[in-house]
């Protein structure tokens, strides 16, 4: 469904709402990371295993129920020690996939084992966070990812011209109609962000 593009380009990254996929077998930790991410104005999908993460990302052979644009995950945060598939194994699968390898992956662990950290970073993890994860960690990650996303968007705009404009309109319509809970905290109500983004939409070269 397309929305009339009234005020110039508008993209998901302009609205600064990242979609984070959190993977952790601990129910307690899933709840906490979800809260940390929501406070940081991120959309969160939390799953309990590497297998479910791959299923969600459409990597397990079965067709994901969501279309690729709706699915767009900006960051994956995964626990290291999980039964079945470890966070490291999940990392390898993601980095080994041409469709998903660009998604930054962060590993979380309660254990600070240097060999483990090195291995993860070598395999392409963006960062290795010590648990329990703090709000400052998440905020820092978000800023880092946003900077990357904005750089990517500008590059895309320069390369793709009208193709990217059409895709962004679809993103816009989805983010306006999706019903995930909008936090009532004044820190991140979505309306002011929308206004902000319309005011400072990037120019196309």
């Amino acid at each position, binding site marked *: 469904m397309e929305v009339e593009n009234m005020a110039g380009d508008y993209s998901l990254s302009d609205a600064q709402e990242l979609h984070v996929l959190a993977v952790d077998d601990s129910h307690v930790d899933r709840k906490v990371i979800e809260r940390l991410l929501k406070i940081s104005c991120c959309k969160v999908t939390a799953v309990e295993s590497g297998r479910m993460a791959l299923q969600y990302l459409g990597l397990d052979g079965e067709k994901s129920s969501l279309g690729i644009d709706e699915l767009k995950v900006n960051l994956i945060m995964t626990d290291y020690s999980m039964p079945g598939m470890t966070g490291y194994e999940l990392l390898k699968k993601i980095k080994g996939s041409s469709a998903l390898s660009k998604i930054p992956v962060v590993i979380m662990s309660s254990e600070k084992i240097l060999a483990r950290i090195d291995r993860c970073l070598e395999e392409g993890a963006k960062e290795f966070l010590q648990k329990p994860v703090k709000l400052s960690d998440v905020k820092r990650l978000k800023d880092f990812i946003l900077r990357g996303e904005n750089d990517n968007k500008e590059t895309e705009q320069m390369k793709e011209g009208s193709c990217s404009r059409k895709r962004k309109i679809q993103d816009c319509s989805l983010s306006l109609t999706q019903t995930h809970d909008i936090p*009532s905290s004044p820190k991140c109500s979505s309306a002011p962000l929308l206004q902000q983004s319309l005011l400072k939409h990037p120019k196309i070269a």
Partner: protein
Amino acid sequence: MERNHHLHRQLANLRQSFFDQGYLDEQLIQLEELQDDANPNFVEEVVTLFYKDSARLIHSIDQALEKNPLDFAKLDSHMHQFQGSNSSIGAKKVKTECTQFREYCRAGNVEGCKRTFQQLKREYALLKTKLEAYFEVA
């Protein structure tokens, strides 16, 4: 007003005793900072999940300790999970017992594991009563 003030003081003293006596560490404060008017029960919800997970893991470990010979890898794995939960809510004393238990696992020390686990269960029970009291007053 007087009663409210009294309750607040009681609550503040109770909280302080948790930290002073080493039952909890600053992770609990971090969790409380994530709570707001829109999510006023966040900490309690997390702690409820924690109780549920803990009961399950303690039961698994109890059962695993009955086996002969002990499967130390499995015990360590359960305890790693339990340690993680405790760390997430800031349960400092219980976490220390977890670390001790895992050291005994790695050393293959049966007596050490069993003894530490009894101590751990006592600490956990204490923690639980304190947290329950805390949420009563809050």
